[in-house]
Structures are given as C-alpha cells and as structure tokens.
C-alpha cells in the first residue's frame, strides 16, 4: 500500500480536476472507442473514476488502470461535449505521466522515446538509414495510395498499409530558412512536424510555396525536434521536457509574428500543451506562454490572417492542375476541430480552389481512429474506427479526401489502401497550393 501511496500523492495534482466530473455519462454519446467496445472503462467517465480511486488508494491494480487510461485516442471529443467542462485531456496527460513514473515505461517505448525521439540527430540518421533499406522486406500494397506492407514485419506492425519514408526528408532539402517578410509584412516561424518531414515532404513544400506567393517571411531553424506529444501521451514526461527545451531554444533565436504548422496535432500541442505541461517558472513555460496565442494551423493563418477566401465560381485565375474537375471532401482532425474549434477555415481553403468541388461527408468530425500510439497498441480497434471513416468518405463520392493532419492522413491512407479504394488522400494546403503558379 505504501507504494500505492506514492502514486496517490502524485495524482493529487489533478484531484481537484477529477471532482469536476459529475458522472453524468454524457461522454458515452460521443466517444469513438466506447462506441466500439461499450466498456465503461473506455470512456472518460470510467477513466476518471479509476483515477479517483487510485488517488483515494481504493484501487490496487494500477497497471490495469493504466491500460484502460491508455486505451484512448486523446481525441478530446468527450471534453468538447462535457457539460461540466472537465479538463479531460489535461487530466489524462498528467495521469499518464504519474502512472508511467510509478509503473515504468515498457522496454520498447523506452528505446523509442529515450533512445531515439529524445535525440533529433539520432532520429534523423536512423530514419535516413531506414529509408534506404525500407524496400527490403516490404512490398507494394496499393498503387493508388503508393502504400506498402510487410509480411516480414507483420508480427510488429500487423497488416498495416503505410507510405514509405520519403527518399529525401524535408529537412534535407530545406535544413533551415530565414526569409525576410515580403509584401504581406509578416514573418512566421515554421514547424513542419515529424510526419511532414519524414513521410510527406510535399506538404512542407506546398506550405513554402504558399508563403512565397503571399509574401510571408519564414524562419525555420535547423535541427527541429518532435513537438513531444508522442512521448507525453505515453507518460514519458522527461523526454517531452527535453524536446520542448530543445525546440524552445531554437525558436527563441528569431522574432516572428506567427508560429505555423501544417499538422493539427503539432498545433494543438504547441498552443495548449507546451504551456500546460512545461515546468513552472521555467524559461520554456514563459516562451510557450508567449507563443501560444501566435500559434496557428496553416489554414487558419491563411483564412483568418491573410484573408484567403473561397473562390467565386467565375474565378479565372485558377492554375489548378492536379485537382481540376475533382470532388474533394474534408475530414476534421480532432486536434483542430475539438481542441481548437477550427472547422470552417480548412473548408474555405479547399473552396479557394475553384477547379474542384467541395462535398461534405457525413460525420466529418468523428475521429479517424489513429490516436498516435493508440494505433500501435490497439491496431484492430483503431482500424474498426477507421473503417467507419472510410464508409463516410466513400459515401461522399469524393475523389479526394483532404485533411489537415499528417497523422490522420496516415490512418486514412491505411484504411483506404486496405480496400484499394482509389480515393486520393491530400493535405488541404496541397489543394490550395495547386491554384498557385510555380
């Protein structure tokens, strides 16, 4: 019991937040995981109850509770719909850190987070090597998506269909940038994020093309690290702290008007979680606090700040080639729609491309089921949730599904590829960038 007592002490920090939950159960209506499993332990109410019991030392199986609390997409849908305004995601992140500290990190996660993610140079080198050898042992899965799968690794990755690592990651093409403000008079800091860097450099290039077109100056420091959310979501606070300190030092080198990312998850992390989870009174906390209001998703920046508007029907200036004549639908990434309430701007950005037609899909804002490490730990469940997304995408009749988060793109590509559906998966910025002449 004395060990449990330690855990209970470290949960005291969130105890006040836990009592805000009135156990009304309304979160059951919206939770994608609960929808699949129907298990009380998979929805916010149940998880919060388990944490209360741990804090009160009324529950002995901390490991079992940890498993439940980690079986969560961290999609924030429950929080967005909670009548009591319970700070569910903050509670879960802090609880995961406390539980991981108490129980420890699995050897695999220790290797990934402490051995690799924590050291951006090591990570980049490793990914480089992997990119060179990745075709060994993998085979083409779906030519439409350009995905591959691997029989050899099926024990580790299941039958996932994944996009191969980029031959040249974004940071190799653009190690750093410092372009002064152009005709917009604005200068932004650009944080491409891991997935853009290593798998979808074309997203980063589209962003730069758009910045150039609008005369936006860009500051992109060399050697950016991961935003830290994968580590934090696994309760690895120490790695998160290191990554935050690393990034915070890099971005402090130059002043900028906005901090822009093309990744919903990175945006939400930088805007909300950096200030929330950085050490009290630290320089990181101070910087994160200053940057939070300046941090924006690329589509919000373009629409709200640069006033990019949906194209008129007669819009003649469209140079769109890739998407001409296409119908495009949009999937709301949870971190944009639920956490940051950004819904109209990405749609406006798609509509800014007069050459294609926007169609709304049903349940556009339900989670795709990726959830970062959730996908790794609960692949079958993740896929079931993804398959519902696939149904809605197909039912919309669109030729392209766009979204604003490279992690969602990975998941959607997997479920579409599994069925050889032939619907293209794109980032909204690619659709907008297509209207601009090179």
């Amino acid at each position, binding site marked *: 019991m004395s060990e449990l007592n330690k855990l209970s002490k470290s949960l005291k920090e969130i105890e*006040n937040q836990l*009592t*805000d939950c*009135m*156990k*009304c*159960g*309304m979160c*059951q*209506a919206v939770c994608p995981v609960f929808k699949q499993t*129907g*298990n*009380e*332990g998979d929805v916010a109410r*149940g998880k919060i*109850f*388990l944490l209360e*019991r741990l804090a009160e030392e009324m*529950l*002995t*199986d901390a490991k*079992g*509770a940890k*498993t*439940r609390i980690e079986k969560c997409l961290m999609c924030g849908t429950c929080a967005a719909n909670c*009548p*009591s*305004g319970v700070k569910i995601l903050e509670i879960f992140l802090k609880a995961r850190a406390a539980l991981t500290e108490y129980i420890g990190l699995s050897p695999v996660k220790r290797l990934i987070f402490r051995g690799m993610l924590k050291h951006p140079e090591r990570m980049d080198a490793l990914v480089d090597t992997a990119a060179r050898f990745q075709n060994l042992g993998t085979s083409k899965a779906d030519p439409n998506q350009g995905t591959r799968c691997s029989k050899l690794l099926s024990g580790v990755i299941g039958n996932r269909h994944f996009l191969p690592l980029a031959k040249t990651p974004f940071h190799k093409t653009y190690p750093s940038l410092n372009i002064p403000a152009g005709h917009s008079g604005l200068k932004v800091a650009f944080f491409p994020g891991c997935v853009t860097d290593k798998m979808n450099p074309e997203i980063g290039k589209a962003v730069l093309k758009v910045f150039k077109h609008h005369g936006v100056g860009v500051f992109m420091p060399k050697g950016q690290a991961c935003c830290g959310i994968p580590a934090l979501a696994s309760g690895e606070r120490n790695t998160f702290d290191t990554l935050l300190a690393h990034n915070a030092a890099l971005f402090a080198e130059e002043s900028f008007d906005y901090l822009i990312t093309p990744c919903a998850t990175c945006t939400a992390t930088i805007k909300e979680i950096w200030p929330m989870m950085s050490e009290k009174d630290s320089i990181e906390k101070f910087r994160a606090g200053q940057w939070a209001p300046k941090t924006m998703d690329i589509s919000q920046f373009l629409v709200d700040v640069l006033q990019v508007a949906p194209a008129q029907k007669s819009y003649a200036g469209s140079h769109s080639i890739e998407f001409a004549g296409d119908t495009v639908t949009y999937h709301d990434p949870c971190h944009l729609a639920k956490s940051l309430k950004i819904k109209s701007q990405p749609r406006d950005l798609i509509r800014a491309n007069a050459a294609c037609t926007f169609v709304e899909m049903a349940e556009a804002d339900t989670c795709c089921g990726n959830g970062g490490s959730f996908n790794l730990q609960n692949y079958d469940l993740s896929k079931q949730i993804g398959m519902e997304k696939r149904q809605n995408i197909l039912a919309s009749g669109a030729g392209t599904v766009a979204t604003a988060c490279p992690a969602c793109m990975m998941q959607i590509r997997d479920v579409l590829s599994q069925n050889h559906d032939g619907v293209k998966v794109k980032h909204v910025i690619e659709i907008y960038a297509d209207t601009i002449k090179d």
Partner: protein
Amino acid sequence: MSLSSSLISELQQICGENGVMTSEVDRQNYSYDAAVLEPTIPAAVVRPNSKESIGKVISLCNDSGTPVTVRGAGTNLSGGTIPNKNGIVLLTNRMNRIIELNETDMYVRVEPGVVTADLAAQVAAKGLFYPPDPGSQAVSTIGGNVAENAGGLRGFKYGVTKDYVMAVEFFDALGRKVTSGSKTVKCVTGYNLAGLMTASEGTLGVFSEITLKLIPPPAASKAMMAVYDSVETATQTVAAIIADRIVPCTLEFMDNFTINAVEDFANVGLPRDAKALLLIEVDGHPAQVAEDGERIEQICKKLGARAIQVARNDAEKDKVWEARRAALSALARLKPTLVLEDATVPRSQIPAMVSAIEKLALKYDIPIGTFGHAGDGNLHPTLLTDRRDVAHWERVENCVADLFDAALSLGGTLSGEHGIGIAKAGFMKNEVGQSSIDFCRTMKAAIDPNNILNPGKIIGQ
C-alpha cells in the same frame, strides 16, 4: 470477489469469454452511476447478447442467491444501478437492436439496450415520432427509460415513457420469460404487467424486449420566451395557460440564479435582471399552432411578462432552446458536485414550491438553481456543493430532506422522473405510508423469493 469459479465459468459459457468481466478495474468501473452516492463494487459484470442468455444468467443467479443489478447506460440519478456487494451487474448494451419498426401499425419493438436518441432518430427517418426525450437521451437506454419511467421536455403534452409502452417481455427472478401487452392499440388480456414493470427499476424483472407506441409528428411548431420580473407572475402564467385549456408541448421555467449561470457560461443574451423566464413551445396543426401561440402571448402579457420573444424561424427557435439546454452545464461548472433534485408538485403549487426552495437555499446557505418542467410541476432544484466539504455536504443532505417534505406537504411527490433507487428509498414511507411499502415488499417477496433482483432499491431491504 466471492463468486465461485464454477459460477464464473458457467456465466462464461452463457455469455462468452468476453461477456464476463471479473478484473478489479472492470468491476470498479461498474460500481457507480450518475447519482452522488458511495460506489459498491460488484463481483462480476456480464454482458448477455441474447434473450435466452438473460434468462440463463438470472436463473443461475437465483440458484446461487447472487444479486443482479441491470444496467443500461448508468445515467440514473438515484443509485438504481449501484450494485450489491457479491452481486453481478448485468449490462444490456450488447442488446441494442431494433427488432421491428412497423410503420403501418405505428409501433416499434426493441431490445432493452437501444439508445433513446438512436431510436428517436430511426423513427423520425420513417416519418414517425417517439416523443419521450429525457435530457440524457443521447446515451440513456430504452430499458433504463422504462425501468425509471423517464420523462422529458415534452412531457406536458405528450406524456412520459409509460404512455408509450404497449408491451413488455421480461425475465422474472427465476429466469422465466414473461410477456404482457400487445401490438394492438387496445389490450386487456390479463394483469397489466407492463404497467407494473414501468418504474420498477430492475427490482421485479429484466426487460428483454419492449414494444413502444409511435405517433405522427406534429406538422408545425412555435417557440417563445417570456421574461418576468417576479417568480410569482411567471408561475401564475403557467397556471393560467393550463386553465385556458391550452396544452403546449413544452413549458419550461428558469429562475434568476440559473439565468445568470447560463449567461456567464453560454452568453445567449438572456436578461440577467429577470426574476424568471418561461420557455414555451406549442406544436400541432399549423392553424392551431398559430392560434395557441397568440393566446399564450396574450396570457403572458396580461399576467405581467416584461417581454415576449417569439422565434420567427428555426435558428431563433434553436436559440430559445439553447438557453434551456445550457442550464445544467452552466450550473455544473459552478461547483464540483451537483445534486439535481426532482421533487414534483401539482402545477398549481409551483409558486409555493419555488418560494419554498428559495427559503431553503437561504436557510442552509446553499446555492440552488431552479429550472425545469413547469408545465408538469416537475422542477429541478439543483444544489451546488462539494462533496468533499463534509460540513457543507451535511447541510445539503438536510436541505434535500426538507425539500422532499416541502413537496409532499404541497401534495407533491418525491420524484417526477429520476426514480427512487437507493437515494430516496428511505423517504418513501413519508409519501406512501408503511402499509404501501409492506404491500410492495410482500409482492416482491412472492415474485423474487431469493431477493436477487436489485435488492435494496425503492422499497429498501
């Protein structure tokens, strides 16, 4: 955990490996519901997937004397799904199929775990209407609704769940299948067991199928908000509307405390200085809606409403209801613990009840926001507290007891829709008298000789 391993394995044979949960974490997760009460950890949680398996599970429990607590979504506010120690929780959410939606004869047959809002949506898609709409409908189950006789915003005109139950099928304490009622509009075959089972809170049997009446949806509707400078005139308006023989589908009340909480939270433009608001909706044939709407406006004006806002379109109508929908959320954010009470009085006594609530809030120094279904006398005085503050919590308990007394002395009842469960079992005697409780206990003992069906609920131990 005290279930024998042979019982567990028999349960597994009936419900499948995944249909029986025995880990500490899983059992903890079914130890509570939406009521502010102490949790009790069950010995196991079972999830039958078919009618037959419900029967088999109950019969096993009866033979071994294991208490069974049925659970739909666990949203009840009276502790009805807090299980018994050494008992099992029988979860119905795997039984969520709509068996038959009959458009010609206008009824629907469902399994008990169907979620209320899902049913309402499916029914609406066929151009029909299932009116009962508890505030929890997005998650609550039909089984739970019938077992609690749940009501909702539309209760005034359309009645509550019991008004739609045509037939029930349930398993009794010995695991035998019992049916009562019919798909016909009229049916007097035998005892009205459907009536008995409604509001029985899992103490008399476990529903396995429910047949519900459907009606044609109203063709038109009109919503308005009337603003008052005194609670008295607002509540008099309610009485006057009823006296004028108008039946709005919804007639909701909100006091000054709640108005301000909603404004702080949702900023919908409510008048902060108003002492009370009435939110009114009429529906039906367009001509009747127009006429009723006008008459209600006149009554409101005559009785001293300071302002009346009539919604001119759907968007404005939505705004009227947004205020009401936000009430619970707005109050919930003010204090960690919220005790949502449910005392109900005859409609003519609403002014007296509202003033009794105000006095109790002062006497015990407890913030209370009152809103609710004025049209059917069902108010929700909502006490804001922090259950960790022992002294305050004690005052809350005393205040609630006084609230019940006030409602009863006005000819009212302990619960309009939230049920008795364990939260109010101790107060039952004050309303119905000992002999009524004895009658129920005798009946329960005959039906459930081993006292395995949700023991301790409603009528106590």
